[in-house]
């Protein structure tokens, strides 16, 4: 078992990950879904940084930095996709995103 001083960090990360998952499955607002995905990425980051402190290794912090870079790339694509779909449909409902899987619906 890991020592007691680091265990609360894991619990916080676990709670944040669960809240993010709850947001993805219970909300329909596409912005809130995006923010929930960001929250889950941040929770995983917290686990990586805690493990870096636990194992005295810098590699986990580098992985956490790369997760931040992936989140930035995701933000660019996701938000431009939201802008395009909002301009065409005037709605933030995530159900309009089924348009991406159908050829003629736009």
């Amino acid at each position: 078992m890991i020592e007691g001083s680091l265990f609360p960090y894991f619990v916080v990360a676990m709670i944040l990950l669960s809240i993010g998952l709850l947001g993805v499955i219970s909300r329909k607002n596409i912005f809130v879904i995006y923010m929930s995905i960001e929250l889950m990425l941040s929770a995983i980051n917290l686990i990586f940084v805690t493990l870096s402190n636990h194992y005295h290794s810098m590699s986990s912090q580098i992985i956490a930095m790369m997760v931040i870079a992936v989140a930035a790339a995701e933000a660019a694509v996701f938000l431009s996709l939201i802008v395009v779909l909002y301009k065409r449909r005037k709605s933030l409902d995530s159900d309009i995103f089924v348009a991406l899987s159908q050829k003629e619906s736009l």
Partner: protein
Amino acid sequence: MLDIVFFLLAFFAIAGAIGMILFHQPVHSALSLILTIIALAGLFALLSASFLFMVQIIVYAGAIITLLIFIIMFLNVKESNLPKEPHKYPAMVVGFVCLIPFNILVLRAFYKMPSSQNIPLETDFGSIKTLGWELFNQWLLPFELISILLLVALIGAVVFGRKDEV
């Protein structure tokens, strides 16, 4: 002292996250997420990851969330454009119940983890120098791949933002 700081930061992180999934307006959710992100940055600082603390504040709170708030205000969403969410709270309760076994599994995994060596951290652990040394010695290829990923995301955003029909 550090325990009090930890509990305050953990409280703000979790409260911000709960507020984020409960608020109806996206702007309120985004401001709530900023609270969570900054509290997480504080947790990184407590874990002696000083460079990631700065990266979290500059890149996450400063760039990603600001871009998100900019897009929300740019779209000028009216109340009538927001989706109706009649099943929001029942879905949250059902999801909460379904997540309990998953969380128990995760807690068991944490308990099974091997304990670490009980030597104190080096003084420059987590500083920009040690992180850069590790990054450019052992993680050079993933670093370059990340830059290619960012380039591809940039091109993808430009393609989506074109005026003509895609």
